[in-house]
């Protein structure tokens, strides 16, 4: 290896032959984004209703917090390997792992969003004759929306940074550049893949940060 691998990584990124075809950067980035969106979406289907329920009723709060904390500690590569040994190579195994990775942030976001609503406001809503469902959907969720989006933000950044593991078991995504670069001692390619993952994570984080700002309810925005 001659020269500076970091500079060569940027040369690699600038090479037009790396920007076309099924293994080109646009396609691999799209795959990577697809895995991330799918993983977070499936996790949200489970974690958001559960988080709202726990936050509103307080039922099972201890269990939810403990389970989410434990799930955070699971090593994702281990999960990918474990699931792939059960269901074979392909997208199912990494997707299961990404869902497990995304659930804690989403669950915590949704339950704390509901809990964060001012008890006086909730009591006022109840005194006006709102049903529990109306209190949840018209008061607690709109007030807590930035925290729910914050949960999505945390989950998305974690999954996008981990989605390279899809390539460990025969899938695409930006992980292909990282594993190929690592295995063939082509470090510029490996660094280029990492830079792309970092860039994608930053873009998604920024987009969700802006969404978070926009969802601040009127009247609660700082002047």
């Amino acid at each position, binding site marked *: 290896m001659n020269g500076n691998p970091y500079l060569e990584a940027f040369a690699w990124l600038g090479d037009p032959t790396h920007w076309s075809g099924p293994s080109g950067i646009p396609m691999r980035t799209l795959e990577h984004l697809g895995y991330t969106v799918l993983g977070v979406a499936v996790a949200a289907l489970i974690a958001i209703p559960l988080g709202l329920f726990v936050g509103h009723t307080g039922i099972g709060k201890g269990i939810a917090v403990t389970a989410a904390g434990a799930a955070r500690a699971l090593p994702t590569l281990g999960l990918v390997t474990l699931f792939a040994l059960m269901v074979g190579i*392909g997208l199912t195994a990494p997707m299961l792992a990404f869902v497990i990775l995304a659930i804690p942030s989403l669950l915590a976001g949704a339950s704390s969003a509901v809990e964060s609503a001012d008890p006086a406001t909730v009591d006022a809503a109840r005194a006006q004759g709102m049903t529990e469902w109306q209190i949840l959907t018209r008061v607690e969720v709109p007030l807590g929306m930035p925290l729910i989006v914050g949960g999505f933000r945390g989950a998305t950044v974690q999954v996008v940074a981990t989605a390279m593991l899809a390539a460990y*078991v025969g899938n695409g995504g930006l992980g292909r550049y990282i*594993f*190929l670069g690592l*295995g063939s001692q082509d470090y510029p390619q490996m660094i280029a893949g990492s830079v792309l993952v970092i860039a994608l994570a930053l873009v998604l984080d920024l987009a969700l940060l802006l969404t978070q700002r926009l969802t601040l309810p009127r009247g609660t925005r700082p002047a």
Partner: protein
Amino acid sequence: MSIHSTRRHLLGALGLGGVALGAAACSSSDPFAEEDGAGGGSSDGGGSADAGTIVVGSQAYYSNEIIAELFAQVLEKAGLTVDRQYQIGQREVYLPELESGALDVMPEYTGNLLQNYEPDAESASPEEIHSALSEVLPDGLRLLPFAQATDQDSYTTTSDFASSNSLTTIADLAGLKDLKIAANSEFEVRPYGPEGVKTVYGVDVTVVPVEDGGGPLTVQALTDGDVQLADLYTSDPAIIANDLVPLEDPESLILPQNVVPVVSKKVDDDAAAAITTVIEALSADDLVELNRRSVEEQASSADIAKGWLGEKGLV
């Protein structure tokens, strides 16, 4: 450069699969149990031990340690005193030790050792690799004959796929459509990868990257039928366990890695002859079976070696 390959080390580091367990089992033998072999006047490490003591080393790789133990036991049978120095790390460490005479016998692999001295060496027949290697070896080191047993990459398939398509060699794959091989992603850019197999054998194959270095996920992709081929090490016990067939490579597309002993000057002709009896008996299937006993039965290298040498009538 690692002794074997990055992927095997990665596998070990991740603690996946039985290979790592096997390695651990082999290396956990009691160091004090070997004291009597070292003889009275042995100094602690460095320099040559007793004039009559042969120091046998091995790589930090369970299969290599088993082969070293085979050599050690036939040397003892020949009446020599043996000092075992197993699980030595990298070539960068043990090759200078061999040259200095601190180490006398090391089991090696022809292709990798040749590339250690000549990084651009291309694949050739096992005989050609062996003779090229004997020319580049530094003064003071001697290369003994090589074994039929190898520890190298392979195009391996299931016995069902092999029999239904009458496959014996890689060349028989020519003409088959939609062939997929499970391998680490660097297989794509290796000389024996898709481009090489197209040039040498006219076979079209696409790589399905499975990054566990020929480990359980790669084997499973093959047995599940996700792929028709997998890049496994020819000495992998999973080949027996899953009734797999490594396809023959008559054109030496893949750099041969035959087992070969490298010895110092202290190994005289009688000692070399003893080691050569092991080499002559060690077939490809034998090496797989030796590895299987380590991985599946967690037997110690000493017991595995003793059993095999007994079967072959060598001790």
